């Protein structure tokens, strides 16, 4: 029986448009916002992969004029580039933004949106926690490979500073196989493992609610079906679409739940070492699952239902369901070992940094995890397996 919480909140704003020819619907979507001249923000790698050409084709038959393409984003979203793009936006008289890409591209687009909507030169007040005071310009997100789901949410990370505000939700997210197609197995695996952790942690978090479950459940289900087979085959468009949808759902659920240990440790360790979150998650998630197994933490039955389907769920005895779901999670992570091998660098993380990371993660957990708990998981995660 589904427990009903006494009180909960849930917000997920953007319209999701997913499937074949999704891109062709962008002009009419913009029309709905009375926008006619969007600035496209993207990265050099997207341009090099020819995805901007594909994207521009979708506008051939429309009256929408692209105000410009800003393609200077690389692996970091910073205020310098946000200012540059904002200048371009103003100079071209744009009235909307389209982020074509992943992480930093979308973060930068959100930052540009604040600058142009509030006519600011920097994000100072917002870095201090102030939410945007007025409605922002319409922002459309078209995710590409290595999509971590956060792009479709109300969070952005610019200059390593995270800002969370409802106004930052994009107006719409367009998932189209022509753009979402994977660039390499590693990127897809990173997308998948982050989504897996987000969906799992959202569904098992203390403060979860039926709306979170409603999104995390299908996300886990899609991942269970497509992660192992899809990640090594970036050209498999149906798997890419499934993973992108799963990532979108997982992040929408996750950003409404308190962050779990895997997420907190990955974030803190990433900041300390500069290693990509997907690569770190590949070693931290198994360690978190091991801890849950050791502590015999009760895992709700629905996780098994999402991961294994009705048949296995029905044939498992009630008390075994939690343990079975953890085993399946580990099998899923294991299936990525070839695509996402544990990094040598990850095993060489300096021991004295672990303390700092554990403190940071525990500090950000609002008292849900202790420093020793975090340290135990970290130590296990970076322990090199015997060769």
């Amino acid at each position, binding site marked *: 029986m589904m427990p009903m919480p006494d009180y909960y909140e849930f917000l997920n704003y953007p319209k999701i448009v997913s499937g074949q020819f999704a891109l062709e619907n962008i002009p009419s979507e913009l029309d709905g916002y009375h926008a006619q001249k969007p600035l496209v923000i993207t990265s050099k790698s997207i341009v090099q992969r020819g995805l901007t050409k594909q994207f521009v084709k979708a506008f051939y038959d429309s009256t929408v004029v692209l105000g410009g393409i800003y393609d200077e984003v690389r692996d970091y979203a910073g*205020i310098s580039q946000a200012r540059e793009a904002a200048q371009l936006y103003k100079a071209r008289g744009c009235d909307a933004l389209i982020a074509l890409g992943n992480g930093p591209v979308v973060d930068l687009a959100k930052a540009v949106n604040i600058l142009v909507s509030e006519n600011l030169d920097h994000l100072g007040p917002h870095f201090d926690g102030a939410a945007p005071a007025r409605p922002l310009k319409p922002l459309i997100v078209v995710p590409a490979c290595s999509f971590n789901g956060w792009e479709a949410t109300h969070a952005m990370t610019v200059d390593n500073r995270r800002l969370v505000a409802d106004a930052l939700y994009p107006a719409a997210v367009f998932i189209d196989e022509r753009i979402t197609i994977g660039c390499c197995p590693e990127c897809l695996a990173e997308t998948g493992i982050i989504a897996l952790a987000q969906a799992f942690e959202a569904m098992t978090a203390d403060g979860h609610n039926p709306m979170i479950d409603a999104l995390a459940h299908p996300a886990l289900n899609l991942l269970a079906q497509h992660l192992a087979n899809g990640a090594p085959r970036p050209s498999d468009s149906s798997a890419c679409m499934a993973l992108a949808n799963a990532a979108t759902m997982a992040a929408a659920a996750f950003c409404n739940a308190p962050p779990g240990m895997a997420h907190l440790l990955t974030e803190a360790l990433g900041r300390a070492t*500069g290693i990509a979150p997907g690569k770190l998650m590949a070693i931290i998630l198994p360690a978190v699952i091991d801890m849950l197994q050791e502590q015999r933490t009760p895992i709700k039955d629905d996780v098994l239902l999402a991961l294994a389907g009705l048949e296995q769920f029905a044939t498992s005895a009630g008390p075994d369901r939690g343990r079975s779901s953890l085993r399946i999670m580990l099998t899923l992570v294991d299936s990525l070992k070839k695509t996402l091998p544990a990094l040598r660098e990850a095993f060489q993380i*300096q021991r004295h940094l672990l303390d700092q990371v554990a403190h940071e993660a525990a500090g950000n957990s609002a008292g849900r995890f202790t420093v020793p708990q975090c340290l135990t998981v970290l130590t296990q995660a970076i322990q090199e397996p015997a060769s």
Partner: protein
Amino acid sequence: MQAKTITGTSNRALEIDLTSRTFREVRINETDLELYLGGKGLGLKLLYDRLTPGVDPLGPDNKIVFSTGVLLGTGAPCSGRFEAVTKSPLTGIMASASCGGPFGMALKTSGWDALILNGKAEAPTYLVINSEGVQFKAADGLWGKDTDSAQDELLKEGNGALVIGQAGENLVRFANIRSGHRFLGRGGMGAVLGAKKIKGIVAKGGEVKIVPVDKKKFVKTNRKFFKAIEQNPMTSGSFRYFGTNANVNPSNAAGILPVRNFTGGSHGEAHKISGETMAERFKTEWDTCKPCVIKCGHKGTIKGQKRHIPEYETMGLLGPNLEIFDPEVISDWNELCSYYGMDTITLGGTLAWAMEATEKGLIQTQLKFGATEGVAEMIRDIALGNGIGKDLAMGSRWASKKYGGEDFAMHVKGLELAAYDPRGAVGQGLSYATANRGACHLSGYVLALEAYFGMASPHATRWKHYMVKYFEDAFAAMNSLHICQFTAFAVQLEPPLIKLTADFVIKLLNQNLSPLALNLMDLSLWPELWHSILGKRYIPYLSMLKFRKAGERVHVLERYMNTREGISKKDDTLPRRLLYEGRKCDAKERTVPLEPMLEKYYKLRGFDANGIPTKKTLKRLGIEIK
């Protein structure tokens, strides 16, 4: 009392455990001396044998080794230098620094070739070293004092001292160690001593006299050395008369002077801080390491006081890089850094980051490019750990991770760039990216060929991997002798074969067949000098090739130690600004094309594609795999 005479080297190292307040004599393995030469190489080997990877640089398990070279104390020219190696609290990897202060001579003439510090003292302590060993003395009265007054106190007990200022005590990650008016500058060694609660170390000195084994050969080689130095226009001309700031005008002309946090490479007002201008304005005179024949260190009368003239790196990074062109103001800041004991290069890079971050709304400070207001106060705040100064005291990498602005934090592996912009000399870009301690200009000074001497094309990538490796090996060997790196200008460029070949021919050769051009350079004076001091005690003859191989061994050992701390290809990179942003001072906007040079460099070095030395390479060099 007549000093005891040592022929060659004493081969004694003093190992001190600060926790238990004990010490022991360690015999230096003769094979190690042959393989690593001394100085930096031997220091690294002693550290390698003792350091566990992953330890906290500011914890008791970190070690710091002070190591002298075979040449020190013999009267060899420009040999008044010693080296320190440790794990850096700024970068988390190996740091090495060379210093021309009197401590090295005092340590060696106390009968010790090296000093190793382990553990952590319980309370502020200073150490007094003599030929018998060490005395541990309470530093209560010294703790909290600046480097000037602390050093004056310590020198009452010996001929040479090492001392930290308040910056080291407060664990500023780029605190340095002072000896005389010279510093072990980079990598935060002052914080390592501060964490060990060591305010200073004084060596009695004068207890031992060092004489070369083959005196005749030593005198003969010395003579050749002097001659080369006197013939070379850098060592006997520009550096001697204008100091290292003789580099300002050539750097400005070549577009490699850092301007406004490396957004520009030249500036119309740069001449105001040139060596030529300062020599005239401040009536400069020599203020050198000892012994030295180049005499690049200068002092002058500034604001009515005799002050050491800031070196080129300080001038560049606290000057144009902050858009300041008043040498008196830069000298004031340099004096403050000396007083508190802080590295001016990292400070300049961090202040420039803070100015740009302020401009972009990431932090709130009074700092502004082109304005002197608030800078001196910020230097104090950094040293004393006040306000945002406490965050800036961690360096630009740390600050940019906290506040953002990583794209304009100008560091490699956490160490801020020296005062050369590699967009005007791309080989230097590769050298910054691969240098073991971070963005170090002294690892392989390729820019001299590219930007100053016209011997290599500054924007071509061809053969730059070879040049970088060649100079890295040569400089690692020189730092192991240990001799001043500026002697390279004389030793390498004065032999007739290279001197009589026109620069454009060398440039052409360097561009098309660099190994041939570089091998025209005769390095033999260095190994000859080393060998004349040790005689045939170790090896019958130290050839130029063996000398270069020793340098290679030192460089690769340091790299291997870094890879054990997690360093790999991902870290061999440059700040985004240098990789992606062009400059207005260039007719055609240029960036550093790092990737293709890096791949070739790894192959040449015998590293795998991820930048890790292969087992085969380590075996070839005789480095024990741990």
